[in-house]
């Protein structure tokens, strides 16, 4: 079994986090998990086309996003649902994207979990691995040029550290000392490839050294430790100290996506080991140990999260798909003469019933 050693902590570090704050983070983690439960099922039932679960990585995502300011820019990958929730993106907006219905801000144009929320500075997500990494550098440089004291944070996994744009982005950020946080969730598996076969490097964090800035490895299932590491990186960046690579060591407890069967490539023992390090359980136990949370209260939080998700599904599911004519919008700021002609032909040929108003 090739499980990377995790920086040793037990329970959960409470550095700088009050009980109410940690309870808020726990609620967000549970909300993400409740959405995962339903998301996987909705796909199996044929009600949505695809789903990408976060399960196991909630501590890393919530801890990171909670340590940021609302004006910081986020360049996410496609497994960042808990980041969006922590940012304050309403469940109904997330679910609208999963359904691709009339209220989807992306007009049903992307597969589920490829979110975009301009209002939350949550940049549009694509499927190619690592392409978002240099975008964070550009955003950070632009913000610095405009005198804005913000950072850009880009999210990616262990697999992305092999991508071209991981190198492009980290190298540019190092050269320009850009206020960027490279937040790598090392969840041990890039679909079927284990972390040990992704790179010979001992850690992913150490790759930062070659680019001339700090890299830190943190227990990604310890929400408090992640929070503290991101706070520190953010402070350094906004003080002109340049970028940081954070490797949050965590685990994808579910499949890569609804199209994946992890039993083909990893053992039940490994999964069991990581389930014993479940970030939700760890935060729960830590709070319980401090007598700040009862079993009953936890159950209420979980049931509350499930009810919120169920209510949002009810609200979003009946909405009709986007107007068919939106097919022809937003490729460029204005349609080319050729696209205008294609739209006219579509309009002339489309059966009236095809337009659900």
């Amino acid at each position, binding site marked *: 079994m090739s499980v990377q050693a995790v920086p040793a902590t037990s329970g959960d570090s409470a550095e700088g986090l009050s009980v109410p704050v940690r309870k808020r983070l726990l609620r967000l983690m549970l909300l993400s998990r409740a959405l995962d439960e339903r998301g996987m099922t909705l796909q199996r039932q044929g009600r949505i086309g695809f789903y990408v679960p976060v399960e196991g990585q909630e501590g890393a995502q919530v801890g990171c996003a909670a340590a940021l300011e609302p004006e910081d*820019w986020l360049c996410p990958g496609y497994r960042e649902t808990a980041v969006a929730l922590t940012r304050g993106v309403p469940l109904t907006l997330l679910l609208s994207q999963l359904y691709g219905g009339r209220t989807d801000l992306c007009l049903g144009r992307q597969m589920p979990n490829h979110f975009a929320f301009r209002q939350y500075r949550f940049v549009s997500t694509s499927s190619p691995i690592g392409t978002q990494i240099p*975008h964070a550098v550009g955003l950070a440089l632009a913000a610095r040029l405009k005198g804005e004291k913000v950072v850009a944070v880009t999210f990616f996994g262990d697999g992305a550290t092999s991508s071209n744009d991981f190198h492009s982005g980290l190298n540019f950020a190092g050269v320009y000392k850009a206020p960027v946080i490279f937040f790598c969730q090392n969840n041990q598996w890039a679909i079927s490839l284990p972390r040990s076969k992704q790179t010979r490097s001992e850690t992913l964090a150490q790759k930062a050294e070659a680019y001339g800035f700090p890299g830190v490895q943190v227990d990604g299932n310890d929400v408090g430790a992640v929070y503290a590491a991101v706070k520190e990186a953010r402070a350094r960046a906004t003080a002109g100290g340049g970028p940081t690579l954070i490797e949050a060591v965590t685990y994808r407890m579910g499949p890569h996506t609804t199209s994946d069967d992890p039993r083909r490539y990893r053992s039940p023992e490994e999964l069991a080991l990581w389930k014993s390090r479940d970030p939700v359980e760890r935060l729960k136990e830590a709070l319980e140990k401090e007598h700040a949370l009862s079993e009953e209260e936890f159950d209420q939080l979980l049931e509350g999260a499930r009810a919120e998700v169920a209510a949002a599904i009810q609200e979003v599911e009946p909405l009709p798909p986007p107007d068919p004519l939106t097919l022809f919008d937003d490729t460029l700021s204005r349609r080319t003469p050729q696209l205008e002609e294609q739209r006219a032909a579509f309009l002339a040929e489309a059966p009236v019933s095809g337009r659900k108003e």
Partner: protein
Amino acid sequence: MTESTLIQAVNQALREAMRADPDVILLGEDIGVNGGVFRATEGLLKEFGEDRVMDTPLNESGIVGTAVGMALYGLKPVAEIQFLDFIYPAFDQIVSELAKLRYRSGGQFPCHVVLRAPYGGGIKGGLYHSQSTEQLFTSIPGLKVVVPSTPADAKGLLLSSIFDEDPVLFLEPKRIYRSLPGEVPEGDHRVPLGSARIAREGADVSVFAYGAMVPVAQQACQGLDAQGIHPELVDLRSLVPLDEAAVLRSVEKTGRAVIVHEAPRFCGYGAELAAILAEKALYSLKAPVVRVTGYDTPFPYALEHLYLPSVDRISRAIERTVRAA
């Protein structure tokens, strides 16, 4: 009006745009201290400083990816790709990100970046300093592709590109960077994207060209006047969006079409033009459409003069077309 070379006109457009708008940022390899390998950015570092004229590490994907991020913020980045031949490491950024951000986000994240890239042969550049691969980009929805052929248009089209709302690939015909100076209007001279230019009026045959092929085709047309053949030369200027109305208008008038480009013929831009003519102007045509293009091979070094469409090849094609029926 002052007489300038095409590369000087590019420089004037960049300077003009940067003076007018502090959001215009340049980035690319060797564009700062060195002023660009072709000197397109000469003097700009001195005037605008290194925050706005950024020498970048040698990584095209990093250049385009960083420019995308700047544009998402609201800046107007103009990135130089040293040669079009070196743009491929950035292909993922261009195809997957730049060209799709507006669409995939439902219009929330428009991404306006200008990519300037010298392209084309005739400079003894061999395989990797000569290619014309515009067709790879004209087939990607979400990108505009612009190619000037005169100094005045280089300035006017570049200024329009910088102040456009969409991503633009701005292809500069490096073969005529310095060889054909022309009058360039002072100040904020703009040429709208998507409008072709009638480089020369004629009645017998329409010749369609762009970039460095325009002056070659022009010479061919002039030579045929003596033989009583009067071609019309249409400089497309903008490949996306294409001024289809101008193309059709010309062929409806002349009934004949010759298409000229440096790029290989198979699935080249000329194939799209020929298809448009077949779909929409067939009954105006008196002769088959003819293409004069590079061959379906990599770009040669020693024999580039035989590979590139020449005055002779274009003249023969025009004659053949006119005499076909």
